[in-house]
């Protein structure tokens, strides 16, 4: 009941906010562009961008966009509550601090599923329109490959969004929270480059955003993963790293939230 209440509140707050729909429309526009490029370039060449080959693009081509927009949306929804002091008022009205945090925490996978789901539906519709009539097979690889890709991509997206949750609870202001979430990518990239310079490639590959990038890559989930992708860690290990980062971000965010006055 408490989970239902917390989730309903988050959904109500999200759907009533114009900024949510602004972010969603921005995401939709960019996704249509990203997925439209292979669609129209195939048509331009007189070729097809359809099933089963299109699955790769559908599942991962736009996933980094969904990941970024998901994190921005999380940062926006969480930090605004501190700016408006509604986070404090919710607790005065009777919601426990843990319930409030649970609502925000559960909204992270919710937002990721919504954005990623939109992307899959949009891509699937385009691919369906362009599938060569002679094609009979819907998939080229075992179904588990696609399921793993989807799950891994969602984990990668959630991991980055949970980092946005942690940053938002830390800075409590929408602008800086979104800025820091986006700037972290640059920091992660520089740190990874530096570590690789010291031949610490294995550690570099485990940095949060490096894990996120790896998990959003279709080739990572192929029955025979491309060695060029990441030769230090196997896909299960990367998934485990993603889970550990996600849990660490969530636990730190909760600790920080409960520790500080509202």
């Amino acid at each position, binding site marked *: 009941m408490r989970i239902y*209440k917390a989730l*309903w*509140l988050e959904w*109500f*707050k999200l759907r*009533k*906010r*114009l*900024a949510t729909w602004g972010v969603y429309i921005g995401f939709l526009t960019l996704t249509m562009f990203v997925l439209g490029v292979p669609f129209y370039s195939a048509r331009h060449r007189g070729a097809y961008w359809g099933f089963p080959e299109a699955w790769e693009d559908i599942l991962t081509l736009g996933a980094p966009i969904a990941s970024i927009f998901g994190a921005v949306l999380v940062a926006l929804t969480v930090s605004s509550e501190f700016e*408006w*002091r*509604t986070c*404090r*008022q*919710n*607790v*005065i*009205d*009777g*919601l*426990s601090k843990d319930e409030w945090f649970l609502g925000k925490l559960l909204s992270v996978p919710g937002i990721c599923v919504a954005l990623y789901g939109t992307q899959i539906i949009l891509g699937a519709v385009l691919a369906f329109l362009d599938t060569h009539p002679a094609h009979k097979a819907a998939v080229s690889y075992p179904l588990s490959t696609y399921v793993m890709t989807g799950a891994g991509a969602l984990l990668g997206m959630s991991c980055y969004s949970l980092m946005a949750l942690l940053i938002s609870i830390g800075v409590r202001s929408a602008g800086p929270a979104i800025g820091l979430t986006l700037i972290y990518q640059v920091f992660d990239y520089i740190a990874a480059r530096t570590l690789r310079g010291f031949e610490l490639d294995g550690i570099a590959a485990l940095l949060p955003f490096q894990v996120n990038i790896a998990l959003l890559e279709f080739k990572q989930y192929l029955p025979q993963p491309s060695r060029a992708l990441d030769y230090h860690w196997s896909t299960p290990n990367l998934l485990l790293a993603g889970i550990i980062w996600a849990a660490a971000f969530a636990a730190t965010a909760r600790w920080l939230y409960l520790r500080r*006055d*509202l």
Partner: protein
Amino acid sequence: MNVLEVQGLTKRYGEKTAVEDLSLTVQQGEVFGFLGPNGSGKTTTLGMIFGVISPTRGTVSLFRESVREALARGRVCGTLEQPNFYPYMTGRENLRVVATIKGLRKELIAPALEAVDLREPAGREVKGYSLGMKQRLALAAAMLGDPEFLILDEPTNGLDPEGMREIRELIVQLSRTGRTILFSTHLLDEVEKICTHVAILKRGRLQRSGAVAQFTCAAVTFRLRAEDTHQLFEAVTQYECARNVRAAGDAVYAELTDDRPAHLSRYLAGRGIYLKELSNQRQSLEEVFLAATAEATAEM
């Protein structure tokens, strides 16, 4: 029955002490004014009572249970600092959020809006509300589910005189329904008009607390007038039970330690002074407040 019990509450931010060793009780049915100048620690204290600010030391209990339990059961509600709402939602939608948190039916929202005269603008976004409308909406939100105890932090802050009067009337109406109300303010007039009890806070320390009537009657000053003010002043100064005698205009003011004005009148008549006026002047809360806060400043 004690609705609120605060024991040795202290809040420190590094070296700075916001509230120090504050103990206080609020009984059922009281309209309790929490009085203090700006920055005296009122909001910090209320934040600790609500459980949104962790005390460095001390305890708070509401209805003899923990703050968390009392809030979760909806026995207490209120606001801290300015009214806090989702600006992009309408007044009605904001109350929907509150009703959901409190586990109430949404049918209760309309009567709550009606009670604070916000039924008309309830469909408009809160970001377009005036401060007075937000304060009224905050009262409606706090009243949802009929909590037994309302805590309001400076509910008339930033309002024009008309808005202040409206909020005061609402508080008086609420107190008539038997609810216990605690509200902070730095406006003495407000406390004097609507409170039964008061606590005065200065620099995080409790200076005085008790019934408003007890405060204002603690030292009764009498106003006396006679034909010859000078002669009257001389005579009253010599009266053994008179204290703090002073003349102002055509009147003489004095405090009576025996609280027997008839004896004073007889004494003056014996000296050939016949009074045109003998009336008691209750000490205003402002005088009590200024005396309490001046004492606190002197101790610093």
